[in-house]
C-alpha cells in the first residue's frame, strides 16, 4: 500500500468517525433538542460523509489497487499523487471551514476548486492504469 493511499484512507476514516458523531447527535436532536446551533453542522455531516469518507477512501484504494505499470514507477510519478492528496484535503478543509464562518470570503468555491484540481490529477494518474492485461506477456 503506497504512502499516499495510507494517508488518504486514514484521513477518510477520521472523517467517517467525525461525520458519524455529528450524524448521531443530529438524529438524537430530532427527538430531544440538544442545542439550537446543532443543525448548522448538517452540511459538515454530509460533506464529510460523501467527500471526506467515501470519495477519499475510493480514490485512495483505486490508486493502490488498479493495474500497475510494468516498467518504471509502478503507479506513475509520485509527486502528482502527493499533490492529489494535498489538494483534496486542503480543499475539503476550506469547504468545511466555510460552513462554520460567516466571513464573506470565498472559502467554499476555493475549496471546491482545489478538490476539482485533485480529481483531475486523479484522472491523469489513473487513466493509463485502466487496462486489461490480456495483451501483455506475463
Amino acid at each position: 500500500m503506497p504512502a499516499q493511499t495510507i494517508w488518504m484512507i486514514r484521513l477518510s476514516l477520521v472523517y467517517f468517525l467525525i461525520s458519524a458523531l455529528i450524524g448521531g447527535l443530529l438524529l438524537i436532536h430530532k427527538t430531544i433538542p440538544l442545542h439550537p446551533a446543532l443543525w448548522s453542522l448538517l452540511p459538515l455531516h454530509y460533506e464529510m460523509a460523501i467527500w471526506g469518507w467515501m470519495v477519499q477512501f475510493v480514490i485512495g484504494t483505486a490508486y493502490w489497487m488498479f493495474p500497475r505499470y510494468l516498467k518504471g514507477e509502478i503507479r506513475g510519478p509520485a509527486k502528482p499523487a502527493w499533490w492529489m492528496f494535498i489538494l483534496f484535503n486542503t480543499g475539503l478543509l476550506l469547504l468545511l471551514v466555510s460552513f462554520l464562518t460567516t466571513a464573506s470570503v470565498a472559502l467554499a468555491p476555493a475549496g471546491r476548486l482545489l478538490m476539482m484540481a485533485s480529481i483531475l490529477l486523479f484522472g491523469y494518474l489513473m487513466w493509463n492504469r485502466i487496462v486489461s492485461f490480456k495483451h501483455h506477456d506475463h
Partner: protein
Amino acid sequence: MPPITRYFIKSGMIYFVLGIVLAFYAELPGIRTGALLLPVYWHMLVIGWLTQIIMGVSIWMFPRTKKQRQNIQSFPAVAAFWTLNTGLVLRFLAEPFIPLVQNGLLFNLVIILSSILQVASVIFYLIEIWPRVQTRKRPVRRKT
C-alpha cells in the same frame, strides 16, 4: 470472501433496492411525504448501501496483520456489521414518525439506541481496519 463480507454486501444490496424504491415512492404524484422520507432513503443509499459495500470489501481485501491472519472473521468486523444493521433498522423504522410522536419515552430511547449503535459500528470498523492500512512487508528472498 469471508462470511462477514457476504453479509455486508448482501445487506448493502437490500438497502440499495429499498433506498431506490423509497426514493421512487416519494416522487410519485399525490404522495406528500415532504421531508419525512428524505433522510431515510438517503441514509439507505449512502450508509446502508455504499458504506456497507466499502466496509465489506475492505474487510475482505485489505492486508491483514500477522495476528489477524489467524482469525479472518474478527470480533470488531462482526460487531461492526451487527451494530450498524441493528442501528439502521431501528432508525428507518422510527425516523419517519418523529413528527408524529411527541415525548414518547420508549420512542426516544429507540432513537438514542439507534444513534449509539451506528456510531459504535464506525468505531468497531475503525478498530478492525486501522491497523490494516499499512505497507505490505514483502518476504525477503533467500539467495540460492
